[in-house]
């Protein structure tokens, strides 16, 4: 009996995987994509270009950062966590000893406040949906709201 199951198991898994591919599981979609300006996909495309211009030197093309100097943007609690805090880091910058993915980094993160709210929203939407990250996009309105709290 057990032998039979073991022998058939790979076949069953294969069949499941194949049907999953055809069906496309609904839960894969980023949650509020529809709400954001210009739609999630368009935002992410624009965000990629902006990331290349403003973030790539330090955080690198693949988001892995630079050992000891610039932190990764891969599944960190800052990238995936509270959006207000994340937007705040971009608007204010960051230059203190904080632990990021179990390590510390010594460069300063310069404020990106010169970027427009929409640009910051696009960059963060890209970051939150790249490098293995999967999280909701960020809207310009969310950035505007956080900017209003910073003098």
């Amino acid at each position, binding site marked *: 009996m057990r032998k039979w199951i073991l022998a058939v198991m790979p076949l069953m898994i294969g069949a499941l995987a194949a049907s999953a591919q055809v069906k496309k599981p609904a839960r894969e979609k980023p949650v509020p994509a529809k709400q954001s300006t210009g739609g999630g996909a368009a935002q992410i495309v624009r965000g990629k270009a902006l990331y290349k211009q403003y973030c790539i030197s330090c955080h*690198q093309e693949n988001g892995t950062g630079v050992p000891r100097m610039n932190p990764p943007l891969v599944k960190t609690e800052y990238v995936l966590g509270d959006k207000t805090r994340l937007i705040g880091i971009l608007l204010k910058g960051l230059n203190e000893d904080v632990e990021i993915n179990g390590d510390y980094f010594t*460069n300063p993160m310069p404020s990106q406040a010169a970027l427009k709210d929409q640009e910051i929203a696009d960059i963060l939407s890209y970051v939150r949906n790249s490098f293995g990250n999967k999280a909701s996009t960020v809207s310009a309105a969310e950035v505007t709201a956080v900017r209003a709290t910073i003098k």
Partner: protein
Amino acid sequence: MLMQKTKVCLIVAMAMTAITSSVFAGGPGKPGATDVKPDANNAGLKLPAGFGALKAADSLGRTRHISVTSNGGVYVKLDRAKNNNGILYLQDTNGDGKIDKKTSFGGYGGTGIYVKGDYLYATSNEDIYRYKLDAQQQVIDPEHPELVVTGLINRRQHESKSIVLDDNGNIYVNIGAYSNSCQTQDRTAGSMGMQPCPILDSAAGIWQFKANKLNQTYGDGVRYATGLRNVVGLDWNKSLNQLFVMQHGRDQLHDLFPSLYTEKQSADLPAECMYALKQGSDCGWPYIYYDQNQHKKMLAPEYGGDGKKTGGENAEDPVVAFPGHMAPNGLLFYTGTQFPEKYRNGAFVAFHGSWNRSPENQAGFFVVFVPFKDGKPAGKWEVFADGFAGPGPVKSPGDAQHRPCGLAQGPDGSLYVTDDVKGTVYRIVYKTK
């Protein structure tokens, strides 16, 4: 009486031979030669003909600078203390070249480590400590170092304190600039430079302190050289009796001034410079940088430069100018006799490898050699040891399997190289047989 004296002398002599031969049994080897066998694949390194390499040790943590004693013991500084241990003492007790005994102490992370006379000196990112050594060059009391210098500036950026000593009881320490180019807003596009740059008073230079005076701080030291953004590799050149340093040049010319510098220019500029210092030397940071293609000191864009205007008439000229961003972390003037004549008194430089050359591939991750004759470079620099990063091109520094950091010379003339990714200690030997 006479008989007895001779006998005693003989016994002492015999005992001495026994001690020395047991201490020198293998590891350190005879000056000018080595019995140590390289690894079959030369530890993955590409070296000039006749050279071989082995991994003396591996997986040690983030090994930064290294110092080898006259009997072959190896001290290594860890970037971060592991289980409250930031210094490793490594021994090769059977002489096969492989480290087979390891002890650790020193509950602080850092970069600098240097053995001189009867002391081991080591640094955190704020302080310099020393430990008295016994006749075997082993630390007597690892738990109670003496505090030589304290309170050096550490504002995160360029925090490491590299050290070297001269033959006159002075210690030289790098205090890096807590800034890229002294902009009002650090690393922010278009922000102009502060005039005068206030960082120069307490950082961005080499400070000199007394090696045997305790609890010194800024007021006790001398700002020996200034205008140095950040130095990690430095060495005292014994034949010239002079301090040489490797500066990490400024970053992000294109990011910060996109209308003045293309990405391509920014990937190669400015030069990583070797300077020969005298007391009072000013190397020009942040007002200028060195362009290795134009062979000129250029006004920094933060101070009105545009890639064409020169500046810093009174600033030192570099002794050697390497391509940009390769991050020279180790410097060593070779005084051994194991390597061929060409290498005598020349400089080895360990390049940690770049991070801000995008969209180009990153560069560096190798050890280069600069031949010297009569105290001056005698020919172009050449790559001496390559392959640390692994086989592929390095798109991002995180792709590099190993990154060279510290350099030291063993008593037999072997060259030691540390790697601060996997904690490998490489030993490079010349195959004399």
